[in-house]
């Protein structure tokens, strides 16, 4: 059931979005927001958006209460309500407002803030993506959309109210205020298939911090892409010297040790694409995160070959994110750049720390592929 309040509520949410945008980096790099199972909303503290007024300062004001207690007894610090417990100060905006927002919405805000382009869906079936629907009446609009009947009805109503309507000689002359116009809204109808294949290096050189960064980044990538496609599929591959497919939970939590053979992951990825996702109808996004430390030059060579032959021809985008690590050599990104510098389908990004996550996301998705 639609309510009147929905409009005002929508306005309020819009204002909130603006506020969130200003502090987005802070929220994005917070790890605790993600990984909560079964909860698709988060609660974030925002500076109050309330309207300022001339008010008494809290501390000098005091108040009156009723009940037990001796002079000097504390009434506590942690209370709701207007007075006790609210830590007053004269900095503006220090009253925090807890706002609940869906992660989906947060990703959209991120998209707006980073000016991420809407992704162009590929595939042969490019069905009309937008449709206009006439859904209401407004008092302003172009003459071509004037609603004849409503306009005259309004004019008649006005004339009756003014007492200038004569039933015997029913002449109705609309004036500007009487005019009513049709109004419309645009309904988007996106329709396409997409799959994201995440690959992560879980070898011994990837420490907890590196994992955290990958976790946060892939979380936001995932959320953003989900907001772009309906019914998106995600696959998760972890690898050290061997690669295997795992579920989402394991993907983010596993810590293994051992050597690194990146080619193992690429092989699995290529197989996945070949077997399950025909590129004519699927938008495919493989993302690979590693610290850039590969086992051998030979293996790197194999990776390049695999990419050239079995992966790149089929995907929208191949993204490689390299997390800075104290142990890794960081060589792999250089090798990739050397071979694929002029290939638009390959995007690489070096992630220096948590603060760089936003920039890295921008590098990955900024092309709108």
């Amino acid at each position, binding site marked *: *059931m639609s*309510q*009147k*309040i929905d*409009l*005002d*509520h*929508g*306005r*309020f*949410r*819009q*204002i909130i979005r603006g506020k969130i945008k200003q502090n987005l980096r802070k929220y994005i790099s917070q790890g605790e927001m993600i990984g909560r199972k079964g909860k698709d909303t988060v609660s974030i503290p925002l500076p109050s*958006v*309330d*309207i*300022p*007024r*001339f*008010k*008494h*300062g*809290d*501390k*000098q*004001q*005091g*108040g*009156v*209460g*009723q*009940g*037990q*207690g*001796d*002079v*000097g*007894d*504390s*009434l*506590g*610090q942690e*209370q709701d*309500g207007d*007075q*006790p*417990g609210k830590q*007053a*100060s*004269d*900095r*503006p*905006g*220090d009253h925090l407002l807890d706002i*609940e927002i869906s992660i989906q919405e947060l990703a959209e805000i991120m998209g707006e803030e980073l000016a991420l382009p809407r992704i162009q869906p590929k595939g042969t079936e490019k069905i009309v993506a937008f449709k206009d629907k006439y859904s209401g009446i*407004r*008092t*302003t609009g172009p003459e071509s959309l004037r609603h004849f009947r409503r306009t005259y009805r309004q004019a008649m109503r006005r004339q009756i109210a003014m007492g200038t309507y004569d039933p015997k000689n029913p002449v109705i002359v609309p004036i500007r205020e009487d005019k009513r116009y049709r109004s419309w809204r645009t309904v988007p109808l996106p329709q396409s298939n997409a799959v994201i294949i995440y690959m992560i290096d879980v070898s011994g050189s990837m420490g907890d911090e590196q994992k955290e960064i990958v976790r946060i980044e892939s979380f936001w990538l995932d959320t953003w892409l989900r907001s772009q496609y309906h019914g998106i599929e995600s696959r998760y591959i972890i690898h050290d010297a061997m690669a295997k497919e795992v579920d989402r939970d394991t993907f983010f939590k596993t810590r293994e040790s051992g050597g690194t053979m990146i080619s193992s992951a690429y092989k699995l990825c290529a197989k996945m694409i070949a077997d399950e996702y025909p590129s004519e109808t699927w938008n495919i996004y493989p993302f690979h995160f590693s610290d850039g430390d590969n086992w051998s030059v030979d293996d790197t060579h194999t990776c390049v070959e695999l990419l050239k032959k079995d992966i790149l021809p089929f995907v929208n985008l191949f993204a490689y994110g390299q997390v800075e690590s104290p142990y890794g050599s960081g060589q792999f990104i250089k090798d990739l750049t050397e071979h694929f510098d002029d290939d638009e389908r390959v995007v690489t990004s070096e992630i220096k720390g948590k603060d760089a996550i936003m920039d890295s996301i921008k590098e990955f998705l900024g092309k709108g592929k």
Partner: protein
Amino acid sequence: MTIKRFPTYLREMQEQIEGYAKDYGLDFFPILYEVLDYKTMNEVAAYGGFPTRYPHWRFGMDYEQLSKSYEWGLSKIYEMVINTNPAYAYLLEGNSLTDQKIVMAHVCAHVDFFKNNYFFSKTDRKMIDGMANHASRVRRHMERHGQDVVEDFIDTCLSIENLIDPMSPYITRTRAPRSPGALEADEAQDNSGRLRAKGYMDSFINPPEYLEAQKKKREDEAKKAKRRFPEQPARDVMRFLIEHAPLEPWQRDCLEIVRDEAYYFAPQAMTKIMNEGWASYWHSKILTQKALTAAEVIDYADANAGVLATAPGRLNPYKLGVELLRNIEDRWNRGQFGKEWDECDSMDLKRNWDRRTGLGMKRLFEVRKLYNDITFIDEFFTLEFCIDQKFYAFGFQERSGNWEIMSRDFKKVKDQLLKQLTNRGQPVIVVEDGNFENRSELLLRHVHEGTDLDGGQTRDTLRNVSKLWTRPVSLLTRIDNKGKLLRCEDGTLSERNAEYPP
């Protein structure tokens, strides 16, 4: 909002309760009940009880907070009633019948209060239409000028919605200027400060130089008075801005709308304690003496205790109001008033004082007609009541960083209580000069009564006032016992020391 038919069993209940209420002498407008589900209830509550308000995000914010607080089980709106004729009241769907009974009795008393209390006598009883008209005016402005522009401007207006003169509907602040004819007659009668003297002494007592000096002085004074703008400091800052700020017609209209609504709601803030006390007094009287069945007593007691519960550091207006009314009833029943009572010093005598005057009920109805919270507390909040009800004053203790009980001293408690009721707890801000320093700047003055203004909010509000005035705006106030002049020019704020009081 779907209109549901008001169920028969509730209608019967309404007739029964209203019958009891009328028997007790309550006199109310016809009441129309609507049963709402909690979502609609929250919506209506966010709109201040009205079905239609102008579009504004803050209603959405209130709605979100109400809904969340309901969903988390922190609060529930049992009842709502608005001051109109007929009065509209809302019942929450799914409440127990006992609850609905309490609410109906409570509502009868509220409506009786709206109808009879003097401070509601100037409010528009057709405010449902009023609000709807405001809404369509604002919508029209939005269509013409854009939603963002108009909504932003309303934000600015709301920022000063508390700068009205809530007593102005009931008193005359400024006398109409005397007609020029009368002034001239004055002039002729007493030409320029001549002292009374017998004819032969006149040239000594009123020498020409003296007369000349007197005349000049008076002219200067007259000139000065003329230069003062406004002539008297203006309490109603909103009205001053409506009349004198260089606003577009649609802006002026928005400001008027916000001001009208502020005046409509003002009496509710001025009589919160009395109004809630009165309603609680009657719901408990009607229910316990008439309407309850034996099976409902426990549920009633539970609900009633919830309404009247107190928490440390918070004043429950329901509790204070109902206890004070009962105290008045008891005192007037036993003749505890008048000169003899006031002058009696013996606590023992006072405790057992009973003249069997039986005037309690009569006095209660007088009180509900003529008083507002301030006069109510000022006159009836007595030492005995204060002790009996365990009142205390609390404040913020810098040393411990805690809110603490400061005093149980009667005078301090009462002073504190009156202070926080004065001007509905809002600071008094007046327009001191509309042509400050002869540069068509605006000077506001905070009438400091012991409490500083909240710094951050003050600065933001000052910015908003200067948006309305379009020229720099200054505010004279006192911070930490020093006079300060805050000035806002083009959105930038400066601060300098100044004389306070001026």
